[in-house]
Every structure is written in structure tokens, then in C-alpha cells.
């Protein structure tokens, strides 16, 4: 499989460059919406929809958007799609809308979506950007669902709202609270690190050109020196 084949672009978001568990982006919705499986799946799919649309749109406009004004442009595009998704969820899935609350609006400033726009869609053609959006969105959904399953089953003895009777006396309600979320998140990151050891992207494989922190970054990397 070539490094940048379409299949690779699609699948790298699932484990190898999982946005939540390897790139450590979008931690805020990850911690906030994984208390229940329903909320996690809903959040993941909503973000997937926004990510796909914004990646395609930004990729289409990548030669028009001026370099210096790119972040505001991305935010406006993303916010537009978030509004569409939000209105859809509000109209057709009112329960999910109530569960996710403000986190649905906060997809606008979700690091994953802005990060993929900056790192990928602004430099790649439309088809690849769409595949990248789908892959990253699926990776986000899988990570959220995995966390939510651990937290809801062990913490609340339910699965997607259905009671699991034999676990009822052994539930650890701590896991549904914020510190429990951080604990499960940390353990999952450790697990993925063990699985992908040697395969996870090294810092070097990110180019400094797309990094918003490049100007202030103190990491000594040759790449940065070459560009300046």
C-alpha cells in the first residue's frame, strides 16, 4: 500500500492516526459526550458529517482562500455546516439534540475539523480530502463509542440505555463522572499506543508548514530550519 494511496488516506484515521487517541485532538467533546453510548455515537456522526462537508468545501476553495486569512475562512465554512447539522438534529432527533446540548454547536471549534482543514484539505484534492474526512470521522466515532461503552457499561450498568441486570450491583458510578472519563481516556490512549507502537506517526512526519504553532514552536526540527 502506497503511503498516500486513497485507501491509506481513508483508513489511517481509524487507528494509525486516530484523531482522538493518537493525534490527541478534540478532547473536549470526547470527555463530555462519552457518558452514554447514544451521545457518543450521535456526536461522532454529527462531527463526521461536518468534517466531510468542510473538508470537501475547503479543498475546493483551497486556491482561492488567501494564506493569511485562512483560519477565519475555515471557521466560517465549518460554522455554516455545523448550523445545518444542528438544525437537522434538532428537527429529526430531538432526544439526541437534548443530550448533546451545547456540544453540538461546539463542533465549530472542534480541533479535529480545523486540524484536518489545516493539515490536509488545504493541500489535497477534493476526493482525497473527502476520504480523509470520512476516515477521520469514523475514527472519531469509534474512539468515542469505545470510551462510552466502557464508561456506560461499567459505570452505569446500562448499554445504550438498556439495563444490564447482572452488572447492576457492581457498577462503578465514578466512571460516568468527569475524572472517570479522563481515566478511561488515558487508558485507551495507552492501549492504542501499545497496539500501534512503531507505526504511529513520528513528530517528524508532520510538516511545520501546516502547523499553526510553527512560529512559536521551540522544537528543534531540521524541517523548520530549512524553510526559514
Amino acid at each position, binding site marked *: 500500500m502506497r503511503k498516500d494511496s486513497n485507501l491509506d488516506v481513508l483508513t489511517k484515521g481509524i487507528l494509525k492516526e486516530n484523531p482522538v487517541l493518537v493525534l490527541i485532538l478534540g478532547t473536549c467533546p470526547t470527555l463530555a459526550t462519552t457518558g452514554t453510548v447514544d451521545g457518543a455515537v450521535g456526536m461522532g456522526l454529527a462531527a463526521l458529517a461536518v468534517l466531510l462537508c468542510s473538508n470537501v468545501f475547503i479543498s475546493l476553495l483551497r486556491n482561492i482562500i488567501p494564506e493569511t486569512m485562512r483560519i477565519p475562512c475555515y471557521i466560517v465554512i465549518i460554522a455554516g455546516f455545523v448550523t445545518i447539522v444542528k438544525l437537522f438534529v434538532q428537527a429529526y432527533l430531538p432526544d439526541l439534540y437534548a443530550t448533546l446540548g451545547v456540544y453540538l454547536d461546539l463542533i465549530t471549534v472542534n480541533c479535529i475539523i480545523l486540524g484536518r482543514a489545516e493539515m490536509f484539505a488545504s493541500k489535497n484534492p477534493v476526493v482525497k480530502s473527502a476520504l480523509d474526512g470520512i476516515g477521520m470521522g469514523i475514527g472519531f466515532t469509534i474512539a468515542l463509542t469505545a470510551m462510552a461503552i466502557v464508561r456506560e457499561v461499567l459505570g452505569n450498568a446500562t448499554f445504550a440505555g438498556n439495563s444490564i441486570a447482572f452488572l447492576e450491583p457492581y457498577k*462503578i458510578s*465514578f466512571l460516568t463522572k468527569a*475524572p472517570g472519563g479522563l481515566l478511561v481516556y488515558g487508558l485507551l490512549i495507552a492501549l492504542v499506543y501499545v497496539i500501534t507502537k512503531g507505526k504511529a506517526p513520528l513528530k517528524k512526519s508532520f510538516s511545520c508548514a501546516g502547523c499553526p504553532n510553527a512560529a512559536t514552536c521551540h522544537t528543534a526540527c531540521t524541517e523548520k530550519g530549512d524553510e526559514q
Partner: protein
Amino acid sequence: MSKLSMSPHIHSGMSTGGIMLDVIIALLPAAVAGVVIFGLSALWVILTCVISCVALEALFTLIAKKPQSVKDLSAAVTGLLLALNLPANIPLWQCVVGSLFAIIVVKCLFGGLGQNVVNPAIAARVFMLVAFGSLAKAAFPVDAVAGATPLAPGATMPDLLTLFTGYYGGAIGETCSVALLVGGIYLVVRRVITWHNPVAFMGTVFVFSFLMEGYDPIKALSMVLCGGVVIGAIFMATDYTTSPPTPWGKVIFGIGCGLFTCLIRYFGSYPEGVSFAILFMNILTPYINRWTRHKVFGTGGAK
């Protein structure tokens, strides 16, 4: 050919296993007292915690392909300390979950003995307190009338003799102050610990309680003897990995523990604050170490 080795060349003869064995010996009086006071259920809690801690550490080192570290007895000490901080009537599956948290999450995942950021037994106790909430309901001596722990709101404080002998509600190992003090003196004599930590800790609790309880020395002494201050000060606040190594660092650490214990007791929503205080000071230990660094010999100008 002779082999060169790095200094220091004089070895005190102390080893991790030897130190841990001393700690276990020092904890035995408290464990025996706990079993006598709370009955056989206390023994089951102790056995469950010790066995699951040792087994989990052995299992983890096997799976992670690390050098086997069970022989240094540190897992056994963690299990024993954890058990002594739990009430005797706790369900045994919760003991296993607590041991799992102590050994796997707090200790092994951070790199094993000497690498853990916080004391595994304390962290597991706090985890169980938050996770199950059942620790708040203390067990009671087999032949005593049930009542709340002395620190619970509305409860009456037992007299000093009861506080020393331990016939009142609480965790297995925290009630019998005499047994704990005997263990503490043994550790100081064996030079496993120094007096700085426990004295600063208990002294701060005494002074703070003295001021809060209307300058009554008896009440202040009761506040020191009940609710885990003694076991915390002697056995938990002196953990090598998670407390400062220098004398001044130890004093600051002990005072901090005592201060936060009393702040939580008097102003917090939990009746007891020893484990939270030690956990908090564990996290501050690197900073205390930075303030109290030894002056390196030969540096600095003449005075």
C-alpha cells in the same frame, strides 16, 4: 582485570526488599489489632487485598515482559496498607477493583516502583471512596453498638483510652493508635523512616485542632488519634517515592498534609481528609524537592 564501579562504594546493606519487610513487620501489630477488633471479616479483606495486589503485579510484569518485581515485597506492602485503610465490611470484589487501580493504574503504568507519582494505596483508597461511596459507612467492632465514625457529623468522640485501643468504628488499621505508634517507633529505630514527616503531620493537626476546638488539648489530641491521621502520618506520608527526601522537605510535606487534613475536616464536605491531603501533597512533592534542594558541596561563595 579489576572492575571499576561508580561511587558511592559504601553500601548500607539496606535493600528494597529489606525495607519493605520492615514496613510489613511494622504494620503487623495494626493488622492483628484490626482482626481482633473487627473480627474475621477484616482478615478476609486483608488477605484479598494483599493477594490481589501481588498477583496483579506478577501478571503485569509477565504481560509487559518486565523484570519480575514481586520479590521486593512492595506490592504486598501496598495491598496491606490499602486493606488497613478500608472498613472490614467492604465487599471483597471492591477490594479487588481497588487493588487493580493501585497496582496497575497508579503503579505499573507509570513504570513500577519508584516511578509512581502518587502513593498507590492512598490513590486507590480515594478512588474507592469516590467510586463506591461505601467507605463512608465504617465497620464497627464486633462487640460494640453501631454508630457513626467519630468524625461524621453529629457523632460523639470516644474518650482517649478508646482512641488508643481502637474499639470504635473506622477502617481496619486506622483505629488502634497504640499498634500504629509501636510500628512507627520500630521503623524509626530501624532507620526506615525519619521522625520529620509523622511529627510535622500530627503536630500540625494537633495545633490546628487546638485552635479550632476552643483551646482544648484533650479534644485536639482526639482529633490527632482518630480517622487515619496516625496511619497516614507514619506509613503513607513517609513513602520514599512520593515524599521529599530532605529533612526540610519532609517537614514542609508533613505540615502541608496536616493543614489540608484539617481544612477538609473543618471546612470541606467530606468528614475525613487524610487521604486527600496526602494525595495532594504527593502531587506537590516535586515542587517541594525543588525548593529544598541540598546545597551542592563546594558551590556558592564564602560567607
